[in-house]
């Protein structure tokens, strides 16, 4: 297992946002985390990536306990992520976003940077190269000099994914990656996700669009911080609890 949580819980001022949650992501899988708004999905992401500290429970990533690690450390260990809304550096250009995100690979220190040693220049050139490669990979190359805040909504989200790829993740967490996209943009993004998986990167994604589940190898359904179902998309779709969480009890 690449990622495993055990009894993960988070309490906000007496309210249990995440309760005793066990989820697993295997290498190379695309795993879905679905549930209605307010079910605690984004909180799970924030717990895994170290933005929030869990109240209880354990998170194992790639064989190591990362339960109380900070956000920049989990990134270093190989967890890339996107955000639901604040997904990029708005005042940087598209290319700068990627260069800024290429912080970890290759790594250089303060003195190298200030003194501009040959090693530093070489590494920065490598970063630029890598940034351009990623942009080409996700198809954003033509707009690399545009300010990120001026991109259309769909492209901004794709840029968010590209930015997360720059940490060379083993696991990619995507928070509602296709929300608000057109049908074509969704199709485009799906291709990108499949290509990412082909490169051996596992994906854990949040979505409340049920249709999107078909992409997943495995799905966990959350409601009010509790896991109410798990399994393949087909299994989950039949589950009565899931139907209730999404549609309420049918009264007609």
């Amino acid at each position: 297992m690449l990622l495993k949580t055990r009894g993960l819980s988070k309490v906000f001022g007496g309210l249990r946002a995440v309760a005793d949650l066990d989820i697993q992501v295997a290498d190379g899988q695309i795993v879905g985390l679905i549930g209605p708004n307010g079910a605690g999905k984004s909180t799970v992401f924030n717990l895994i990536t170290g933005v929030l500290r869990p109240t209880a429970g354990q998170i194992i990533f790639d064989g190591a306990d990362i339960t109380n690690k900070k956000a920049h450390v989990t990134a270093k260990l190989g967890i890339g992520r996107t955000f639901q809304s604040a997904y990029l550096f708005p005042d940087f250009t598209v290319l700068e976003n990627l260069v800024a995100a290429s912080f970890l690979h290759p790594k250089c220190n303060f003195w190298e940077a200030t003194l501009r040693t040959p090693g530093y220049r070489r590494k920065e050139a490598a970063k630029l190269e890598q940034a351009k490669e990623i942009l080409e990979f996700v198809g954003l190359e033509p707009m690399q000099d545009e300010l990120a805040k001026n991109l259309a909504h769909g492209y901004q989200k794709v840029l968010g994914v590209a930015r997360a790829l720059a940490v060379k993740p083993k696991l990619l967490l995507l928070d509602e990656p296709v929300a608000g996209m057109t049908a074509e943009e969704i199709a485009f993004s799906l291709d990108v996700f499949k290509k990412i998986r082909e490169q051996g990167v596992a994906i854990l994604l949040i979505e409340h669009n049920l249709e999107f589940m078909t992409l997943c190898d495995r799905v966990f359904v959350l409601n009010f911080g509790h896991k109410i179902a798990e399994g393949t998309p087909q299994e989950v779709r039949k589950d009565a609890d899931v139907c209730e969480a999404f549609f309420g009890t049918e009264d007609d």
Partner: protein
Amino acid sequence: MQLDIRDIRIHYGKAIAVDGVSIRVGAGEVVAIVGANGSGKSTILEAISGLTPLSSGEIWFGEERIDRLPAYEIVRRGLMQVPEGRRLFPYLSVWTNMQMGASLRKDKAGIRKDMEEVFEHFPILRERRNQKAGSLSGGEQQMLAIARAMVGRPKLLCLDEPSLGLAPIMVNGLVPVIKDINEQGVGVLLVEQNVPLALKVADRAYALQVGKVILEGDAETFRCNDVVRKAYLGG
């Protein structure tokens, strides 16, 4: 015709959020706008309530053009909103929150009477009227947000995602509430991601995608439409 949105466009910086949308709500009608996050639904509501300026187009309410009025003037004309995230005043009591809904009304007796009426609808709020709004549960907060708007006696009530963060049971509870409001002669414009809920209460609906209306019609039209069914109705 009560609310008439005519071909509006809204930009955020260079990006376009709403692109040529026309929506009409007749007197006493319940109309829903459905669509995913980022499709521009909330932006339209912001524009209606005067919080976001239009790049082009017009918004009419009754016989008057309202898209250049300050927000409080729009409220004065009887168009109230239960906004995204509810926007309660968390450190004021339930009672005071409801009083705020009646900010523009001068008839103290009438306000008191309406408060009583609203409490009939939401008895739990009467019980908690001295509690701070921030200490209520999610469902109670949603009720308070709706109750607050009702005390303002609107002609048209806009609801922005009332089902957000509610338990399924609570979501079902919204249906009679919205129908009740409508029966008192108040028009309702409902913005929802929860399409089944929206279709349960709305006379007509508009589906929004990336700032454009892609489908318009009654609930039946929506249930029969393949795109909508696949995207939202799980089947």
